[in-house]
């Protein structure tokens, strides 16, 4: 099988023969390749890694891959796949070839994301207070008010430091010209940061030499930065704030991450049943009695946070928590109602939002987005379903998505119906040629699509650790990188100057 493909490559692409045998299945076409330039010569930042790959004995690599897999399995670094009865706990597959980002590229990402989170926090404050941006006709009021994650209960409430989104992770993709663009912002309860940290830990064990050679910037101060961000959200006059992480519990897909972060920060990992509210003050039940809680890093969706304020059937939340937050007696990261700003239709307005609040041009571009709620866009979208990616605006994790070029006629018909029935619920984007990075697959090096999720902290100031989670679409040709949909990850190396 492999031999055949090599021949085919030789016949069609005359230059492919120039790549070493290890690369016989390496796909190079219009998409940006992270390692190889157009001339099939490794980019300068990848030169050392490329040389190392060439010297690589597959057995040796196999051994290290096994060591890495064992590390993840024994540590229980797993996630839960919904909708499967058996084997719901899975190891998140890791590829051992790091993804490299140069210091210059990182500067752009860092500045762009900082600009973005600042604008988003100003935007959230505005829409939950005066709504100037509506009055000035920049964003239509009804688009925000019709958003599934808009919370009228938040109107007039002032979160500590006006920070609505303290913890977020934005998904970046690299366009075919090599620029990074933002594909979506995750402003509710983004996950994945523990994989970034675990990947790094494994790589340091397995390839210590490579780290020394490259000058990789460290990421392990993330948890410290997270804790100080959370502390900065404490109510005033609480000199030694008690911070807790509120998890939905062991059945949540990101439970491992919750435990990991709580342990690294040395804070309590609590569930809803551990907390109670008395006189608008939040307490946790401890063996020594009730202890006051000052800041909650909640990994529970808005809907489930407080059965008195939101969904009544929630057993994950804490009755009265929202009132305690409203009274200013407890800080919460993120605040309620931030999901309105990562609605995929609002995303399309982000360049205008940045311009409006900061009077700056966006440093990181958006991906072109069509909004079927507008007649022109809708016509275009319906005519081009086979070319576009259609996404439900309130969904995440790769659910509720149509990838036009890979879809069947039935799926397209289904989405056509859905879009016509409820155009506000969808957006469409051109099918992007996501950049590809080298991965170790079946004893060979193959190219797989990747994206990048850096993690942004905004408390007293904005902090982004240099790195992120590079997610890989492990299936050949697949564009979906979500862990719930068969994606994997690799370590991300941001080089120092």
């Amino acid at each position, binding site marked *: 099988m492999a031999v055949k493909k090599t021949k085919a490559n030789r016949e069609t692409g005359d230059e492919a023969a120039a790549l070493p045998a290890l690369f016989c299945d390496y796909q190079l076409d219009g998409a940006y390749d992270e390692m190889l330039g157009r001339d099939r010569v490794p980019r300068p930042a990848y030169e050392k890694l490329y040389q190392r790959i060439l010297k690589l004995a597959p057995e040796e690599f196999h051994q290290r891959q096994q060591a890495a897999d064992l590390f993840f*399995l*024994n*540590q229980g670094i797993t996630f839960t796949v919904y909708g499967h009865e058996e084997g719901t706990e899975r190891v998140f597959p890791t590829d051992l070839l790091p993804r490299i980002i140069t210091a210059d590229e990182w500067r752009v990402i860092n500045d762009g994301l900082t600009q973005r989170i600042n604008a988003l926090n100003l935007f959230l404050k505005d829409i939950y207070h005066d709504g100037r941006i509506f009055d000035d006709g920049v964003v239509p009021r009804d688009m925000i008010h019709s958003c599934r994650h808009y919370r009228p209960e938040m109107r007039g409430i002032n979160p500590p430091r006006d920070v609505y989104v303290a913890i977020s992770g934005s998904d970046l993709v690299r366009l075919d010209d090599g620029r990074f663009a933002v594909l979506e912002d995750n402003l509710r309860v983004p996950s994945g940061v523990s994989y970034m940290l675990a990947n790094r830990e494994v790589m340091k064990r397995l390839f210590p030499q490579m780290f020394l050679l490259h000058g990789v910037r460290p990421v392990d101060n993330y948890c410290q930065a997270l804790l100080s961000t959370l502390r900065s959200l404490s109510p005033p006059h609480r000199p030694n704030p008690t911070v807790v992480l509120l998890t939905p*519990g062991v059945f949540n897909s990101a439970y491992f991450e919750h435990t990991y972060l*709580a342990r690294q920060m040395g804070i309590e990992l609590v569930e809803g049943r551990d907390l109670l509210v008395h006189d608008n003050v939040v307490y946790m039940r401890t063996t*020594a009695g009730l202890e006051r809680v000052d800041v909650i890093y909640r990994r529970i969706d808005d809907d489930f946070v407080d059965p008195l304020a939101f969904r009544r059937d929630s057993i994950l939340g804490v009755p009265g928590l929202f009132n305690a937050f409203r009274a200013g007696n407890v800080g919460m990261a993120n605040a309620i109602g931030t999901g309105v700003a990562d609605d995929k239709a609002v995303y399309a307005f982000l360049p205008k939002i940045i311009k409006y609040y900061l009077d700056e041009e966006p440093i990181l571009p958006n991906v072109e987005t069509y909004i079927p709620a507008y007649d022109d866009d809708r016509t275009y979208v319906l005519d081009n379903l086979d070319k576009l990616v259609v996404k439900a605006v309130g969904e995440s994790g790769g659910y509720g998505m149509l990838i036009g070029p890979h879809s069947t006629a039935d799926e397209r018909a289904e989405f056509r119906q859905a879009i016509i029935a409820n155009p506000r619920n969808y957006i469409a984007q051109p099918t992007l040629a996501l950049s590809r990075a080298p991965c170790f697959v079946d004893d060979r090096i193959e190219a797989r699509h990747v994206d990048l999720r850096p993690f942004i902290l905004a408390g007293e100031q904005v902090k982004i650790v240099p790195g992120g989670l590079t997610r890989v679409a492990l299936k050949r040709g697949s564009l979906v990188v979500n862990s719930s949909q068969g994606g994997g990850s690799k370590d991300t190396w941001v080089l120092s100057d």
Partner: protein
Amino acid sequence: MLSRVSDSLYWMSRYLERAEHNARLIGVNLDLSLELATAFLPDRWARPLAAMNAGLSPDETADLDAMLAVLLYDAGRPVSVRACVNAARENARQVREQVSTEMWQDLNRLYLRLRGAAKLTSDEHGNFCRDVIEGSHLFQGLTDATLNHGEGWQFIQIGRYLERAMATSRLLDVYFASYMADGAALGAVEYIEQVGLLKSCTAFEGYCKVYTADFQPRHIAEFLLLNEEFPRSVRFAVDSVQAALAEIARDVGARKTGRAERLAGRLRATLDFGHVDEIMADSLHDYLGDVTRQCERIHAAMYETYIAYTVDSALAS
């Protein structure tokens, strides 16, 4: 420490202790079957089954492999070793951030190994039991070596030793019930059974050091019930429970002695000053029944004080 967390640590430890105890009981009795040189005898297993409170149907005790399929591998049956390890691991998973990485890895490894051992051949049952016992020992060592000896560690101690005190009591009761009923001197078979009882508590060598290899029911009862230094004796276990409860009370800054501490202190005193001749002259069965009841009360009182207290009582204090 969160009440829920102490609850999970406590049960993690109890379940692992139970897994170890059941695995040892089964392993020892498998071994004994060989020495008794008979094929499978359902009667032989009556005592260990009663000690485990196994509740097997007659079908399930019809032949050895069918019985072991339940006792060792059937994750759906609470008595099985695998179910106990699963429960221990599930409790640890609930408080993953509270146990050390080393502890978690060990427990997870044990869990994965058992999961892979669903269909073992008859020759491998013994190894399976030894694996579980070893895994549990390793876990205890790691717990002592890698976890802060704070409140959480104390709850782990309580879980282990309360389970142990009750398990050893039950085992003694079951063995001595039939011994007393028979009322006969030790024949060759009974001799092997008494040695089996000691081995079921890893007490063989410990016993010999104190009494030499002279096996007297009275000495065996004394050793397993009242010995101060043997880590699987009822007294040792109760001493440990009492000490851990006292530490926890100190840690949380309790101002007055709680009910759990008081009950544990009283039980400890009973055992510390107990004498085997008096106990056996009276009724060993009643005595052991009382120990078990006291252990259950300690459990309930501990829950009431630290884990499942009412909010009103907490706000009032």
